[in-house]
């Protein structure tokens, strides 16, 4: 881990001649106002993307970004400025702008740099350099060929590959001085299949904090292409989805987006400090059926939602949010933890140096229960079995949430029968969680392509769950 700090320092500070003493003097300058705490967030990220379409790799892009964000906090107030130039004058200027949030004449104290966190959940290697360009192109071409080989009804194949190598260095008045080196890759396949004039799309992806080798191992890339085709072809047979309330069985893995929307956002510390969440002030209360234990765990090796440290330099952890149906805790960043009188949970995240950190999820999932998945499906006389989702949204204040099924089937007399068209499912977070009546023994995490948006900021996240049954949910189909 200290190796990560040294790597980050060599990229972010050394070339510009900035030393630790410069960072300390900027932080000192921030503390001359009545500022409670302040931090500097240095970031450099290199990103590449390759796209195959019409059987050829027709586009590639490369982007490099770096900068430093300066934040000063006084009570509940935050001043923030940033610069895309990492040099002392720009840093000083940003600090002057940020500290204006607080009156002058404060006497906050700068803590000495403290010990280093030591988690090492992923290798710091550069994904962009992990495979020669010609091999990246070959990988995309092999997936295109594999998809087309699966089924003659496949008309279009789009394959995209992206990789990010990000370095961050965080220095704060509370003594934080740490860094992280974060690889992130993803591979996506999208196909259009056509039959008798009807067209349907199938799409899927995989990824994580790994290098591109991951896609070559165990034929993961090729399996992805087959899966995209399978999804598209299934949809060619789909009938109209039902409309109305019914029992819904959610498959394992990616359908965990349910928890992300129905529970996760509502348990972020900022909303609960402000009292704007449907879960506000309900710690210790029963907010879900006793079958539900839900955690946010940023410490899973190589996962897309994992981080060695969050963007405030706090080591990530496994936080129990709901245990056997009882609300246990919220996800916190430093500021909201301080204002609520609890410890930060390593959930302070930001999209980039140009954005303010806030409490965000990492990998959020429900632990396994006792039921055999088949038994869960058999228990439903008439309902919906949904296995893939296109995303969701939540209104944290009223608790209403939606998520859109992209692959779902009817359950008739305890058996999965016909596929149905995509439909939105809607519910109320706390009420839906009380309706969870069976939880499978088959916990699965998603394949590593989730992105969460909050207040205009996107961050990579993970979700997961075992197969589970919700007794009653509204399904937004067109068939009466």
């Amino acid at each position, binding site marked *: 881990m200290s190796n990560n700090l040294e790597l980050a320092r060599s990229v972010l500070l050394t070339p510009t001649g900035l030393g630790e003493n410069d960072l300390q003097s900027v932080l000192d300058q921030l503390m001359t106002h009545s500022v409670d705490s302040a931090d500097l967030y240095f970031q450099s990220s290199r990103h*590449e993307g390759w796209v195959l379409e*019409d059987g*050829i*790799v*027709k*586009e*590639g*892009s*490369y*982007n*490099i*970004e770096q900068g430093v964000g300066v934040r000063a906090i006084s009570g*509940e*107030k935050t*001043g*923030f*400025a*940033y*610069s*895309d130039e990492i040099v002392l004058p720009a840093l000083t200027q940003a600090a002057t*702008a*940020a500290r*204006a*949030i607080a009156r002058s004449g404060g006497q906050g104290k700068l803590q000495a740099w403290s010990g280093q966190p030591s988690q090492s959940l992923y290798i710091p290697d550069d994904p962009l350099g992990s495979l020669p*360009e010609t091999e990246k*192109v070959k990988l995309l071409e092999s997936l295109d060929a594999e998809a087309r080989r699966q089924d003659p009804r496949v*008309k*279009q194949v789009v394959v995209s590959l992206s990789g990010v190598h990000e370095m961050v260095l965080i220095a704060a008045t509370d003594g934080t001085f740490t860094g992280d080196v974060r690889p992130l890759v993803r591979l996506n396949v999208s196909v*259009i299949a056509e039959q008798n004039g009807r*067209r*349907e*799309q199938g799409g899927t992806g995989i990824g994580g904090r790994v290098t591109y080798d991951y896609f070559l191992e165990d034929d993961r890339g090729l399996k992805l292409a087959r899966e995209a085709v399978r999804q598209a072809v299934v949809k060619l047979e789909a009938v109209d989805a039902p*409309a*109305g*309330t019914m029992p819904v069985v959610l498959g394992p893995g990616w359908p965990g987006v349910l928890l992300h929307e129905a529970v996760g956002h509502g348990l972020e510390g900022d909303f609960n400090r*402000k*009292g*704007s969440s*449907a879960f506000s002030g309900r710690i210790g209360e029963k907010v879900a059926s006793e079958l539900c234990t839900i955690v946010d765990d940023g410490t899973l090796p190589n996962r897309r939602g994992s981080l060695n440290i969050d963007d405030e330099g706090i080591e990530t952890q496994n936080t129990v949010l709901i245990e056997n149906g009882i609300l246990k805790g919220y996800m916190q960043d430093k500021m909201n933890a301080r204002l609520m009188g609890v410890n930060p949970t390593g959930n302070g995240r930001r999209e980039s140096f*140009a954005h*303010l950190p806030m409490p965000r999820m990492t990998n959020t999932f429900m632990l396994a229960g006792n039921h055999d998945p088949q038994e869960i499906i058999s228990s439903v006389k008439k309902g919906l079995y949904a296995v893939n989702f*296109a*995303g969701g*949204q939540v*209104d944290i*204040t*009223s608790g*209403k949430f*939606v998520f*859109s099924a992209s692959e779902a089937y009817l359950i008739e007399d305890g058996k999965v029968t016909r596929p149905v068209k*995509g*439909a*939105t499912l*809607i519910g109320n977070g706390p009420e839906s969680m009380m309706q969870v009546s069976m939880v499978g023994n088959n916990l699965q995490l998603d394949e590593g392509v989730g992105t969460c948006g909050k207040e205009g900021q996107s961050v990579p996240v993970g979700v997961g769950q075992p197969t589970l049954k919700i007794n009653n949910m*509204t*399904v*937004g*189909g*067109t068939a*009466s």
Partner: protein
Amino acid sequence: MDMPVVFSDREDQSRLESVIERVLEEARKQGASSAEADAHMDAGLSVTSRMGDVETIEHTRDKSMGVTVYFGQCKGSASTSDFSDNAVIDTVKAACSIARHTTEDPFSGLADAELMAKNIPDLDLSHPWSLSAERAIEITKECEAAALNTDKRITNSEGATIDSHQGIRGYGNSHGFIASYPASRHSLSCSVIASEGDKMQSNYWYTVARKHEDLEALTSVGRKAAERALGRLGASPIATTQMPVIFSADMATGLISHFLRAINGNSLYRDSSFLKDTLGESIFPEFIRIDERPHLIGGLGSTPFDNEGVATTARDYIIDGVLQSYVLNSYSARKLNLQTTGNAGGVHNLFITHSDLTQNDLFKKIGNGLFVTELMGQGINIVTGDYSRGAAGFLIENGEITRPVEEITIAGNLRDMFKKIVTISNDIETRGNIFTGSILVDSMMVAGQ
């Protein structure tokens, strides 16, 4: 406190254009047969006050430059936020290195030289506001106070935020085209929470304009946010049924944006649109015309040229309900054997015909139905036109709003929904790129209890 950076337009425009020139020159030097570059600079101030006190002050200052190089028909792109000479060289080098590995694509390349904007009209898009942080705090506090004072059931707030941005956008390519223009954008929003018993409802209102003088009065923004939140109190689902649906003007812009995605060349050439091969076909009822006005003076969507330097022009997409044109950039146009419509980067001010009816007249017209004021989720499939979204709004009974409704979905197929538009009222949404009134759709499946 600091004032935000105010660009000296002319000086910064020439700085931006010189970056673009250096990039194009470097691309030529490194052997590219053609190249294009875009760049932008932005500065702004964003201030939020919550529960009567300032919460955040953010100073934003961004810039970026992107380049695409072509070696024959092989293409590579790169971008950076660093305008230094070394960064220009490295960025062009990165783009060239990618182009060596991409495959020849007969459809790639710059837009045709004769389509480049010849003169750059002044569309009156730039009205910088030298807003101090102190003044921004006063405005947001006053806006939020108007919301909090509306009713004692407004018990909490997510605050009022003011954003003021100004910037310059430039583009150039190896046809010798290079141009830039300044633009500003200011907005004020407020979001508050109403509560009754243990139920809470939040809602918001916002105003946006190129000129700060054109923003809606700050107390009105606060009051509307409060009224909208109060209006949601007591909302509940309704029984599953088929009924007429009125999309409020701000939600109706979404319906039109789905139409635009479906006639976008990028969806069409990928066989990914339910409106593939529909030029000349009737998509909407006969009374509907949809046209684009890119040179609208001071318009939020106005631009003199598109992302490829192509001159933007006024254009009809729908006349008498019939599709006249797709939305194309040069690449999708070549793929479809058509000519670009100057829409690289999207459309610019879209107008939809409306009637003289008020929104209230629509309620009277349907008698019983659903008035949708909020939509949730991503349940729109442009490949098939299938539409299923979470919704909230009000139940209309005997021509009047009777109660707030939530936790329902509305579903249909866009092809069918467009055909079933009965009328559009005269309450035009003006806060974006799509100008439409509230849209009445004859019948949709509403799923609830």
